[in-house]
């Protein structure tokens, strides 16, 4: 066997394997600003790449029968590099073909499911097919070079390719995307493929002038991509991008809405719809309008405590809860706040754009998962807020189970409060009912569900060894509440604005670490929201 030539082919296979993983892992992030990064988007991207690779294997196998497989390999790698280099620039225009101008949340799931599949097919199928063809060609070349049997050559090729993929996975997720960003990651992957093509071209002395010309064209094409900016969704007029960053977890950006007075800033992560993860206004205290954050002040007012109010937020984001509570605490009560946030980039940006600062009364646990971090928090707390979301509207299943809420309960003072923000369309929404039933089961106490008027959120309340106030009973709005707090509760005593879950009468599935079908429940929630109420009535002429 001629070791130099064979190792060049195997190196090409390894580089191609690494590039495929870089494309696959970048693909979801690339689509995230339009379609989010839900499980369904991941499945679509992986499915399309697998389809492309499988087609590529067959086509590569067929090309390997020819007399000049090395030239075919140069073509595949060169054109594959070209497709890869242009992905960050064509992703936007392609994604926008499959998104309506205005997208409602109740239609978003279906649009994202089909839109991400169509966009993935257009964007990633060509490169996947081309790079899938690399393996069989390399196996054939290695076999011819060393007179090896098919199994031996194939085994060596798979070894090289898989090692390349392994390096590609770790390098892309842990280094490339968070450090140099998506655009440079994909350009680097394209550069890797061009390098592989060049190695084969030069060191195996492929003589065909067309292959040389093709390689040159691919090189120029990929080079021109370097000079082109990445496409991103256009912000509405009056909304300004303050800063955007890629973190190991998500695409993150802060925007400022200058159409409102005062200006509002919001944190958006992987947003494909009109949702936000945190908001900021210059003043501390209650936010103007229908923000669920305003509900976070209610337990401190209901409790009637003096001194210090120890509050822990799981899913702090940019610290909106802290700012709202700090400015709207009852007289004689000081907020002692601890926030847990998984993504350190969010905290870093919040410090810059949202006045978030750790001090004697504000502790920030950054870079830690909410559940794991509970073990590091020193109790007891008066109030634990759970406001953890991933991929826009998805509640992480491990932060919704009875085992998690048992942990929450054990950290609370007697009569302390647990409050969960749940994205849902009504108090009988499947996901809202399930989480309220789970909280109730964990606390062995009733749970109160309050709908946030004008918003797509519900607040779920439960107390350790106690019960929240009932909207129809006296004490719902104590007479000493100032008007700003009383106004938050007024009107919420009517039908449709609240519900009550007793331990003995759960209204939904109790979620456990073993079975927490959160995504399915959220899917049901969206399906239910899409149904017209008219369907339930037999009204004349309808």
């Amino acid at each position, binding site marked *: 066997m001629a070791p130099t030539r064979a190792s060049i082919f195997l190196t090409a296979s390894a580089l191609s394997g690494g590039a495929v993983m870089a494309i696959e892992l970048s693909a979801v992030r690339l689509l995230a600003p339009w379609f989010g990064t839900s499980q369904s988007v991941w499945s679509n991207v992986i499915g399309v790449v697998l*389809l*492309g690779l499988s*087609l590529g294997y*067959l*086509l590569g196998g*067929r090309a390997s029968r020819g007399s000049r497989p090395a030239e075919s390999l140069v073509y595949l790698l060169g054109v594959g590099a070209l497709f890869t280099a242009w992905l960050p620039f064509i992703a936007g225009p392609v994604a926008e*073909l*499959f*998104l*309506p*101008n*205005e*997208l*409602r949340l*109740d*239609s978003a799931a*279906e*649009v994202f499911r*089909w*839109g991400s*599949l*169509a*966009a993935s*097919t*257009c964007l990633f*199928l060509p490169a996947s*097919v081309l790079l899938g063809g690399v393996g069989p060609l390399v196996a054939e070349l290695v076999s011819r070079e060393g007179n090896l049997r098919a199994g031996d050559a194939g085994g060596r090729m798979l070894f090289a390719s898989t090692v390349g993929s392994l390096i590609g996975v770790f390098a892309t997720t842990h280094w490339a995307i968070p450090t140099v960003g998506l655009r440079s990651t994909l350009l680097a992957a394209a550069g890797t493929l061009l390098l592989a093509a060049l190695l084969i071209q030069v060191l195996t002395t492929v003589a065909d002038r067309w292959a040389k010309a093709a390689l040159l064209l691919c090189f120029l094409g990929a080079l021109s991509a370097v000079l082109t900016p990445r496409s991103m969704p256009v912000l509405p007029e009056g909304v300004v991008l303050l800063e955007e960053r890629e973190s190991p977890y998500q695409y993150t950006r802060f925007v400022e809405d200058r159409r409102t007075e005062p200006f509002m800033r919001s944190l958006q992560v992987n947003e494909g719809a009109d949702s936000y993860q945190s908001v900021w206004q210059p003043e501390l205290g209650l936010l103007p309008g229908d923000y669920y954050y305003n509900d976070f002040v209610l337990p401190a007012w209901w409790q009637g405590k003096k001194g210090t109010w120890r509050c822990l937020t799981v899913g702090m984001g940019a610290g909106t809860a802290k700012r709202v509570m700090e400015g709207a605490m009852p007289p004689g009560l000081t907020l002692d706040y601890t926030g847990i946030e998984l993504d350190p980039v969010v905290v870093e940006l919040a410090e810059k754009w949202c006045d978030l600062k750790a001090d004697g009364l504000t502790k920030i646990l950054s870079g830690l998962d909410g559940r794991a971090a509970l073990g590091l928090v020193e109790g007891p707390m008066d109030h634990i807020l759970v406001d953890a979301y991933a991929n826009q509207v998805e509640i992480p299943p491990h932060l919704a189970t009875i085992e998690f809420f048992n942990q929450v309960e054990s950290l609370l003072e007697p009569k302390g409060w647990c409050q969960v923000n749940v994205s849902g*369309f*009504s108090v009988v929404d499947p996901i809202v009912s399930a989480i309220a039933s789970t909280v109730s089961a964990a606390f062995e106490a009733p749970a109160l569900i309050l*709908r946030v*008027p*004008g918003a797509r959120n519900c607040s779920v309340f439960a107390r350790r060894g106690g019960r929240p106030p009932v*909207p*129809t009973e006296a004490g719902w709005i104590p007479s000493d509440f100032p008007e700003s707090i009383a106004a938050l509760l*007024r*009107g*919420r*005593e*009517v*039908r*449709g*604005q609240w519900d009550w879950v007793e331990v003995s009468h759960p209204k939904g599935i109790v979620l456990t670490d073993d079975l927490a079908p959160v995504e399915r429940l959220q899917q049901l929630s969206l399906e239910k929201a899409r149904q*017209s*109420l*008219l*369907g*339930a*009535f*037999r*009204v*004349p*002429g*309808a």
Partner: protein
Amino acid sequence: MMTLLRHALVSVARLGGSLLALGPLVFAQGATPSDVAFAKSEAFLVKSAFGSAMASAKGIHPEEVRARQEAIILYRARSYDAALERALVAIQGGLRDELLLLHAVRASVWIQDTEAAEYCQGLLEDRLDVMTGDGAANLSWWADQVDGLSSWVDTMILQDAETAAVIRRSRTTTVSVFGTALGVLGLAAFFSSRKS
């Protein structure tokens, strides 16, 4: 029917801020327990005491009139889906007064229920065409309301149509590209087997 007419009268009067003036008129015509319940409910509603307004409304009869009053209370308390549900009960019961329909359309718009919004908007427009009495005196105000809501409803209809078109386009593209890829593969396999 007379009860309903009186209730509609009072509601329209509330809209114009003249509840106090019309209230005695209701009682002057001989108040039933349902009328009293309605008047109480209205009084609580004016004070934004929504829970008490709902509790008082329980005494209103018949069912569709109670549903109408509850729809208005629930709408004012910003419980829009519950408001629409009650409004549809009232509509199903044969009520077609403009105040009920206005609240039904607004609630549908809030919860983005295009189908219900389109239906209730149609009823409201029909109602306007035949409006008489006090409502007719404020016809231009009502026409403005209907126009405003109409543009909301039209936007919702357009958005729904656009979303449906986008989903269709996504499906067609996916199926076409997958089909083409598999077709090419099939052809390649066919020619390959012929050669060998």
